[in-house]
């Protein structure tokens, strides 16, 4: 039984222009100690899905799912009081902007110890000791002195380390990292990712890493879930995904990697993720897909596990399929 | 194709940009229900002020000796000819209120115009030239701001002598530092922008630069501040009138009317209630409008 098991999660927002569906029937699971990566462009609903899991969305959001089970407990319909015992303690989250994610009015020590105060019955001295230990564990020099420092006195990388220390204070079973390295300098990025990976391995902590960067995925993830416009379009283990992407969107993402580009120009995916007003009626990727055919305007079919659960009528790299040439022909025929 | 009356493409483009901006402005403004209500009330007030002689049933200063302190029409003893009753010397309250709108709007317009003009000029000079002249101007503004506005206006009027004109001058003087500060701040933030630098490189003269390049970019905060000052000016002028230092009797200015009616407060509620209500409604309408303007003009609050 997986640690986290979400089935058919949908998140909708009531906006002035009608209902906006940010997450559309996403299913997701994560085993104990596993590093799962969720990949997609901005607007693909990857953060929203995880915020929904944590219960951090504004009240305007409507969250529905068939099930949302964490460590054997159903989170849907759980009372807020009960859920707050899980959130922070067993399931923690860090965010993209470490500098603004820490409260500027409280010291680093206060913010870390607050987590311990909330979820453990440690006394004052124990909390102090544990906080020092935590800061040391995320590689902050002079941890004792740093406890009395305010966030604005820290650099971005330091702030993210503090965030990690805070999130892992109660040794959670699952850590969700939402683009944890995106806002940082390149050299710091690698350090933060290393830190997260070692934490996951040492403590047997599951890690869900949200990113848009395929390079980060390759380096970190064990399994990958690709999301597009609020839908899960593909899911595979990381090696297979990189060698045999089944969804054209995944393939396009991979070919946009600089190190994979063989032409002089870096390939990019034409068009943008559909928004609230330009949602295509059929397959959501159809307007940007070079393999799309007439049936793609009706809808997309979910493929089996052999084809990475791809949400696509014409999955690539199928057994006995010799690449996309034939598809290209089909497309030409369909549009003429 | 639509036949354009304007021949040059540049002018046409500029006109279309302006129309689009106006449309966008109206979209955000009209989203705010309060602001639209405020706008309509304000328009109604302007109409009432302009056509006061046609609308008012009586002269604002004619004293009906046979009708002293007649209550409003719905109360016992009320008379149909005096809908909102009469004051202690037999003047029709409604007519005085209608004429009073002229004074309030006039006060607002004069104060804002004077304060805005001087404020922009001083602010542009301070922000553009910086250095000694900037320090001098801003110090003087700090000094003015150190006094509570009504107190300073009160003392100024005491020196200049009571009267509507002096009250307006005093209020304008007290409000002007806000405009100086705003203009200076926006000028300073715009000065380093590329478009200003390029205009400078292109050889634009300081005056041209200030009026054509810098000023248009300070307009939004100035408009919001002007609306705020408009309503505050009405309040302060009425307060001065109430203290006997603004418009002098028998001028039907709302604050002055309240001052005259004060001693009858427990005997005739209507002579006190209606002028104040008129002030409140006017000020409220303008403030509602101001909120809408701020939302529509402030790009920070605009949702992408």
């Amino acid at each position: 039984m997986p640690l986290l098991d979400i089935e058919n999660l949908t998140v909708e927002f009531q906006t002035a222009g009608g209902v906006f569906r940010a997450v559309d029937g996403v299913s997701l699971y994560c085993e104990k100690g596993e590093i799962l990566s969720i990949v997609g462009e901005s607007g693909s609903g990857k953060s929203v899905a995880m915020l929904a899991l944590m219960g951090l969305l504004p009240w305007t959001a409507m969250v529905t799912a068939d099930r949302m089970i964490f460590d054997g407990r159903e989170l849907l319909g759980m009372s807020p009081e009960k859920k707050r015992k899980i959130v922070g303690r067993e399931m923690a989250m860090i965010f993209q902007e470490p500098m603004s994610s820490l409260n500027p009015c409280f010291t680093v020590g206060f913010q870390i110890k607050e987590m311990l105060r909330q979820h453990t019955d440690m006394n004052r001295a124990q909390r102090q000791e544990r906080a020092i230990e935590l800061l040391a564990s995320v590689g902050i020099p002079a941890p004792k002195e740093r406890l009395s420092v305010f966030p604005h006195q820290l650099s971005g990388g330091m702030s993210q380390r503090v965030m990690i220390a805070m999130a892992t204070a109660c040794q959670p079973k699952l850590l969700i990292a939402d683009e944890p390295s995106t806002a940082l300098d390149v050299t710091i990025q690698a350090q933060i990712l290393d830190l997260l990976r070692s934490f996951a391995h040492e403590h047997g902590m599951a890690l869900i890493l949200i990113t848009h960067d395929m390079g980060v995925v390759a380096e970190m993830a064990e399994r990958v879930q690709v999301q597009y416009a609020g839908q899960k379009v593909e899911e595979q283990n990381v090696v297979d995904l990189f060698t045999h992407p089944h969804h054209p969107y995944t393939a396009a993402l991979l070919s946009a990697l600089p190190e994979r580009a063989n032409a002089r120009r870096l390939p990019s995916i034409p068009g943008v993720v559909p928004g609230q007003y330009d949602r295509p009626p059929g397959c959501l990727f159809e307007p940007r897909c070079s393999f799309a055919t007439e049936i793609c305007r009706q809808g997309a079919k979910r493929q089996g596990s052999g084809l990475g659960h791809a949400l696509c009528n014409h999955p690539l790299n199928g057994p006995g399929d010799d690449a996309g040439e034939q598809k290209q022909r089909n497309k030409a025929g369909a549009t003429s | 194709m639509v036949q354009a009356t304007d021949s040059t493409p540049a002018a046409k483009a500029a006109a279309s940009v302006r129309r689009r901006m106006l449309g966008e402005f109206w979209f955000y403004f009209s989203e705010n229900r309060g602001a639209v209500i405020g706008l309509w009330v304000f328009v109604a007030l302007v109409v009432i002020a302009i056509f006061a002689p046609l609308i008012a049933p009586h002269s604002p200063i004619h004293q009906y000796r046979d009708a002293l302190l007649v209550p409003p029409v719905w109360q016992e003893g009320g008379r149909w000819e005096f809908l909102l009753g009469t004051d202690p010397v037999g003047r029709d309250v409604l007519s005085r209120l209608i004429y009073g709108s002229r004074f309030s709007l006039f006060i607002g317009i004069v104060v804002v115009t004077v304060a805005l003009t001087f404020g922009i000029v001083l602010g542009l000079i301070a922000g553009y030239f910086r250095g000694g002249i900037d320090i001098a101007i801003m110090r003087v503004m700090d000094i003015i701001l150190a006094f509570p506005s009504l107190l300073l206006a009160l003392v100024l009027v005491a020196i200049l002598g009571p009267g509507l004109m002096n009250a307006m001058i005093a209020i304008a003087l007290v409000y002007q530092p806000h405009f100086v500060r705003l203009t200076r701040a926006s000028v300073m933030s715009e000065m380093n922008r590329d478009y200003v630098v390029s205009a400078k490189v292109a050889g634009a003269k300081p005056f041209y630069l200030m009026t054509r390049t810098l000023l248009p970019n300070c307009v939004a905060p100035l408009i919001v501040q002007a609306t705020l000052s408009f309503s505050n000016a009405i309040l302060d002028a009425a307060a001065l009138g109430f203290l006997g230092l603004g418009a002098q009797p028998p001028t039907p200015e709302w604050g002055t009317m309240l001052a005259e009616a004060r001693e009858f407060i427990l005997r005739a509620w209507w002579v006190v209630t209606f002028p104040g209500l008129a002030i409140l409604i006017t000020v409220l309408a303008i403030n509602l409008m101001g909120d809408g303007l701020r939302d529509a003009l402030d790009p920070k609050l605009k949702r992408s």
Partner: protein
Amino acid sequence: MLKFLLSRLAVLIPTFLGVSIIAFSFIRLLPGDPVMLMSGERVMAPERHAEIMHELGYDRPLPVQYLDYLGGVLTGDFGKSVVTKRPVVDDFFKLFPATLELSLCAIIIAVVLGIPAGVLAAVKRGSFFDQTVTGAALVGYSMPIFWWGLLLIIVFSGVLQWTPVSGRISLLYFFKPVTGFMLIDSLLSGQKGAFASAVNHLILPAIVLATIPLAVIARQTRSAMLEVLGEDYVRTARAKGLSPLRVVGLHALRNALIPVITTVGLQVGVLMAGAILTETIFSWPGIGKWMVDSVSRRDYPVIQSGLLIIAGIIMMVNLIVDVLYGLVNPRISHD
């Protein structure tokens, strides 16, 4: 922090000198000379006139007169009232407690009601409560308070007969002022009913004076809170599994209070302007009424020095608020 304080003082001292110059020059801007203005309509022999001018030092050059005045101010001599013949400082200290008591009550009402109202309105954005608070704040902000005071008198003193119309305490009670605060003095006097009478006299003026600060503080708190609630660190606090009360009341409010403190500080000027009107309406014997009376009596030494003292007090309070602002904002206090 010390640097911050020094930089404030560096601006404050020249401003205060400027304020004193303005206050000083007002009388001199008037047509005619001070002695003629004070004597009013009475005819005066030229010799006597010159004598008084000399006596009061008005025949010296203006800069000398100013330095003399400034020297007096720095040693606590603010001149004498033409009407009461008493030193201006004495009159001021006799009347100031009344204004202070009224203003303190008003600002307490405004803060105690305004901040929670603003916080709740922001938390329940768009709700009926929010709309009520926003609407009421806008009305309060637009209120001509002199009319509002009269209206309350009509209702509570006229129709309901609950509160008196003027003064600080009923004439039935008499006791020597100790603190100058009627609420405290009435309790100290031990006379039965004195405290209730003092409260009864204070309540309407305090409400009237609190109206605009209350509206401004509620509005400012709401908008500061709305901004803060959208911040990342509030999301972090929620991600820690903290209760909504702690997230809003500690993490969000602590940050929202920083701009609110500045707003509260700015209300001191509003309170002084409001005191002028409120004290006039309720015949409250404080410095607001004192200034209005002095203006109508043309008591120029009082106007001049009163203006200076009030501006000085406001500047001092603003300095205190600046320090407080620095203290609550770690970005300044821990630099």
